[in-house]
């Protein structure tokens, strides 16, 4: 009873605090100065039509690097928590999944049709991050959704964890190397102007942003795939 009452008090007081935010909120009529300068500078200085990608991969690319580090730590800690000593992990994979009912024909055929399409779509999202909505994180998540579909449709399917970790580490190292190249050849760490900016709006443009986007997509896709693999029984 006391617990229920305290929950109600907590919810109501939190709700009142949030309601004061709604009451005091007024919609912005024009972008703030910082937003304005980003909107002006990203197409001019970086040559990227998508302002958000320009912010994520150049102006705040250090943030993105930290975020990639967080993802790496999550993959490691999930591996630590769901480590090999886990009870059902004993025995080869075939024994563990043999009791599982195989997925139906519809799911298997659907997977065969969809996984290549999902992979192509992921590549499209990653490589067009500087032109339209998209980028490395989003495309990497799409890659991982393809891996998840494979894991659901074929319980025996096992992505090679060694290949995934090596690819991921190489992509991460190259990301940092591109950043260091910016330190030498351009204005600072992770500056995208180490490569020619090219024609505004073209596929090969915006300097190193497509390269960084591709590396990020590969890294995120591999990391999420490893994470999914860890979660299976």
């Amino acid at each position: 009873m006391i617990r229920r009452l305290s929950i109600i008090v907590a919810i109501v007081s939190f709700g009142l605090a949030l309601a004061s935010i709604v009451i005091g909120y007024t919609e912005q009529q024009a972008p703030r100065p910082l937003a304005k300068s980003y909107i002006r500078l990203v197409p001019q200085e970086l040559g990227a039509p998508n302002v958000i990608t320009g912010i994520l991969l150049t102006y705040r690319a250090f943030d993105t690097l930290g975020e990639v580090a967080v993802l790496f730590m999550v993959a490691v800690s999930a591996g630590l928590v769901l480590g090999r000593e886990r009870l059902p992990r004993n025995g080869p994979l075939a024994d563990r999944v043999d009791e599982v009912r195989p997925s139906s024909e519809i799911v298997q055929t659907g997977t065969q049709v969809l996984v290549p399409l999902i992979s192509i779509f992921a590549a499209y999202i990653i490589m067009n991050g500087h032109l339209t909505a998209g980028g490395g994180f989003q495309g990497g998540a799409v890659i991982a959704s393809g891996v998840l579909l494979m894991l659901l449709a074929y319980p025996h399917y096992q992505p090679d964890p060694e290949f995934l970790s090596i690819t991921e580490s190489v992509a991460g190292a190259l990301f940092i190397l591109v950043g260091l190249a910016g330190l030498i050849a351009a204005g600072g760490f992770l500056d995208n102007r180490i490569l020619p900016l090219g024609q505004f709006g073209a596929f090969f443009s915006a300097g190193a942003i497509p390269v960084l986007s591709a590396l990020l997509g590969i890294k995120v896709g591999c990391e999420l795939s490893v994470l999914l693999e860890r979660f299976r029984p």
Partner: protein
Amino acid sequence: MISSIVLTTGLFLILIGLWGMLTHRNILRIIIGFSLMGTGTHIVIVAIGYVTNGTAPIIDQALSLSEAASRAVDPIPSALAVTAIVIGMAVTAVMLAYAIRLYESSKTLSIDAFTESKW
């Protein structure tokens, strides 16, 4: 106008998530409540970046370079939301991993079974 509707929705989602976390005793439901709170926060972040009559800050035929500064929404909250979504997913993954371990150790997902760390 639009953004205050979105803002209210996001804040409601935060409240629903908090309510779910406080009332449920099943660890998976607590994790779902936490994810709802996170999603609500993302919606709030995106909503406060909205500029009246703004559009996505992507320069193309629909949004020329000259009018971008007056017609585009604030790009910084959108960039932060991308970051927040990835981190939210990561935190959820770690919580689920711990939930699996807790289930293995005591064969139940009720949080009442784990009293060792209760103060």
